[in-house]
């Protein structure tokens, strides 16, 4: 019996979310007295997969079939069901692939499923995990009553925990052949050279209080200095000031970075739903009554356009003093 982590394969590279899943699977396996394994689908070098050993994964099951790159959720679920035939728990990333595959896998395994869990189970028997519900307005204690369980883990909720073991790589045949892949990809547009919002540890975000798209230079400069991603409120992307991919909130991306800066954002409940999982929130807003200050840890009642250059200078100074 084992706990299996399905590691997202980004063109042969494992990103932070993958190592976080490995850390989580290792800790859960320890808690349940089981073995921690990982599954990788699609081409990846052995040295890359070996890195999972640093986070407590003893065995990596690998099917190198490159068709898995099509992200065909039905085929991936089939492959994972083969790998997880004797698993107790399977954990996937809470990215679009994980969200699409995990429920399908749960049905194949006749397992109960809970998405976007925020850490280790509070109880193993019965199996109870916490997750955010009502888009950030409450926490639910979800109880799974089947033998097998499938979960997705919220990004940045568990963190990386090193626990070096020697990972053995084992080729496995998932049983997927050409006829299992129904999707065909016509075109791919990649975002390059930017910190991805979904993976960022620091996010610098602006709302309508930024007044004009021309004022975004300072947001970008601060983000660059901090190695952060940029984000925005919904009206800002609706008005075309910023690309849609930057919109965070209930109807945009849901993020949980270590640090979230909100410049000129009122803090509407639908906005907070997407960012309230952030560990530290900094708000700059002219209006002392703005609801964002109820969610914020640090705040300035003032003009974002005046504060931004000060923040930029302060970060530059900190960097110099290092």
């Amino acid at each position, binding site marked *: 019996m084992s706990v299996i982590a399905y590691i997202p394969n980004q063109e042969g590279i494992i990103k932070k979310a993958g190592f976080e899943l490995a850390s989580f699977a290792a800790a859960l396996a320890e808690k349940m007295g089981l073995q921690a394994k990982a599954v990788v689908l699609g081409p990846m070098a052995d040295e890359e997969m070996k890195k999972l050993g640093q986070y407590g994964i003893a065995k990596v099951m690998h099917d190198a079939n490159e068709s898995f790159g099509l992200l065909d959720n039905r085929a991936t679920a089939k492959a994972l069901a083969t790998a997880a035939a004797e698993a107790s728990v399977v954990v996937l990333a809470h990215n679009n692939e994980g969200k*699409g595959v995990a429920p399908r896998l749960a*049905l194949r395994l006749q397992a109960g499923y809970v998405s976007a869990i925020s850490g280790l189970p509070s109880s193993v028997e019965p199996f109870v995990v916490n997750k955010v519900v*009502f888009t950030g307005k409450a926490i639910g204690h979800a109880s799974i009553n089947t033998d097998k369980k499938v979960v997705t883990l919220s990004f940045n909720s568990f963190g990386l925990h090193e626990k070096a073991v020697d990972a053995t790589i084992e080729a496995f045949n998932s049983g997927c052949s050409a006829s299992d892949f129904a999707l065909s990809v016509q075109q791919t547009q990649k975002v390059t050279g930017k910190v991805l919002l979904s993976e960022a540890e620091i996010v610098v975000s602006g709302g309508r209080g930024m007044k004009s798209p021309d004022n975004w230079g300072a947001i970008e400069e601060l983000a660059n200095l901090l190695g952060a991603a940029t984000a925005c409120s919904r009206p800002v992307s609706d008005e075309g000031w910023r690309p849609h*991919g930057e919109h965070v909130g209930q109807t945009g991306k849901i993020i949980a970075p270590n640090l979230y800066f909100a410049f000129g954002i009122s803090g509407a409940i639908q906005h907070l739903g997407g960012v309230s999982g952030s560990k530290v929130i900094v708000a700059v807003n002219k209006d002392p009554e703005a609801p964002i200050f109820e969610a914020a840890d640090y705040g300035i009642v003032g003009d974002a356009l005046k504060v931004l250059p000060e923040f930029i200078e302060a970060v530059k100074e*900190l960097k110099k003093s290092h």
Partner: protein
Amino acid sequence: MKVLILIGNVPDTNTKVKFNADRTAFDTAGVQWIINPWDELALTRALEVKEAQAGAIESITVANVGRVETEATLRKALAIGADKAFRIDADPADAYTVAAQLAPHCKEYDIIFAGVEASDYNGNAVGPMLAELLDIPSIAGVSGFNVENGKAVFTREIDGGSQTVTAPVPVMAIVQKGIAKEPRIPAMRGIMMARTKPLQVIPPQAVDARMKYAGFDLPPAKAACKKFTEEQARELIHALRDEAKAL
């Protein structure tokens, strides 16, 4: 092509969330119910395509698993422009129950749309589960939809970019932001017409739930925000490094 859109019935996004005394169930007193935002956007996009290209979409059906109270939400979907509706008369105990109730009634559709998550329990489950029960492909993260030369074409968001994807029908699309810009609002004529559009009520089957909520908590109260003045902006950055250890 025949299109089916799954409709979740959820509390208005401005609802203040409350639970019963022992915090085991959501308190629905005074709650306004709406179409789950993603489902409303999927319906909007399907209508746009149906109107823009004669013959591309033959019919749009909307479906819900729920008790009689959810009919107002289905009627709203009809008022926005769906052609017909069905409701399976069961409590939506968990995502598996919803998918299992729907599956026997979804075989005739070419494209099924579900939202990425319902804004009540944020389950992220019903669409892919239904696709698995029907043994049809599903596409996650769908942010665009069109019909080109009789074929369904989707845009989907993936880690680090987006893709244009085609699939044979039947297919399930799990929709997110971008599928349509603003949800359509029912017009007076639509509301009148909705009254006479078919809304079929289907008796449920016996299905056992696979997960349940043992209880709920409200998020822990945050410590009061530490306020700085404009002039102290640089000190705030120092506090982020030295005190919050966030830099």
